[in-house]
């Protein structure tokens, strides 16, 4: 089982205000907030952590059947390079994040060696969301003008 999540950075800058009072407290753990506030680019780290949490949550909710909005329970740790982990309860997810000028995309799996096997397709579009059902992806994320499919 794999998960993914994409944030269109232009849209994120318009649709959300991470500096809003209470925003960081509702979404991030103490350790994540410390990293965000002390980092060079808080905006990018906010959305990197967010995609890690969402990618892991998509697997978690499918595995357990639980739907909830509990981002603080998904604890992110940054690893080497683009890698990281997300822990919730006794489950640990492994993540790999791609950051470009325009978007942040994170893939997640239950085993670290799964990540290299995931095929990623990112489609930039304008207007209607392209049809993707026939491609039969394992997980889908779309935000702004980007559609991310993983297989």
């Amino acid at each position, binding site marked *: 089982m794999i998960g993914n999540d994409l944030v269109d950075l232009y849209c994120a800058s318009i649709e959300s205000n991470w500096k809003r009072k*209470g925003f960081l407290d509702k979404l991030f753990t103490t350790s994540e907030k410390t990293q965000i506030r002390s980092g060079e680019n808080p905006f990018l780290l906010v959305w990197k952590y967010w995609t890690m949490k969402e990618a892991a949550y998509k697997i978690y909710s499918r595995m357990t059947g639980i739907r909830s909005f509990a981002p603080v329970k998904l604890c992110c740790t940054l690893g080497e390079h683009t890698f990281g982990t997300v822990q919730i309860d006794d489950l640990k997810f492994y993540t790999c994040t791609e950051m470009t000028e325009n978007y942040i995309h994170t893939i997640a799996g239950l085993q670290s060696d799964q990540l290299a096997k995931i095929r990623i397709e990112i489609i930039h579009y304008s207007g209607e969301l392209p049809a993707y059902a026939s491609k039969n992806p394992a997980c889908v994320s779309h935000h702004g003008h980007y559609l991310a499919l993983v297989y």
Partner: protein
Amino acid sequence: MPNENLINRLKAIVSTYAQNKEALNSINEETDFINDLKINSANLVDVILDVEEEFDIVIDNDAMEKMLTVKASIAVIEAKLSEK
């Protein structure tokens, strides 16, 4: 409709973030913020913060977990209001 006043105040909040305006027009207790209104999950936190401001309540993480539907949100708002 029960809780009509609460639903209307909640509707005013979610209308900012709802991408499915048709579902917004027919909002009811069963409406799901993500599946029906197509609110981006990153904006759920804004819904929660707006609800805190609008009703002058504090929503703890345990209560926030459940707030994915109108029904669950109304229940949380009513419980927090009654504690005041």
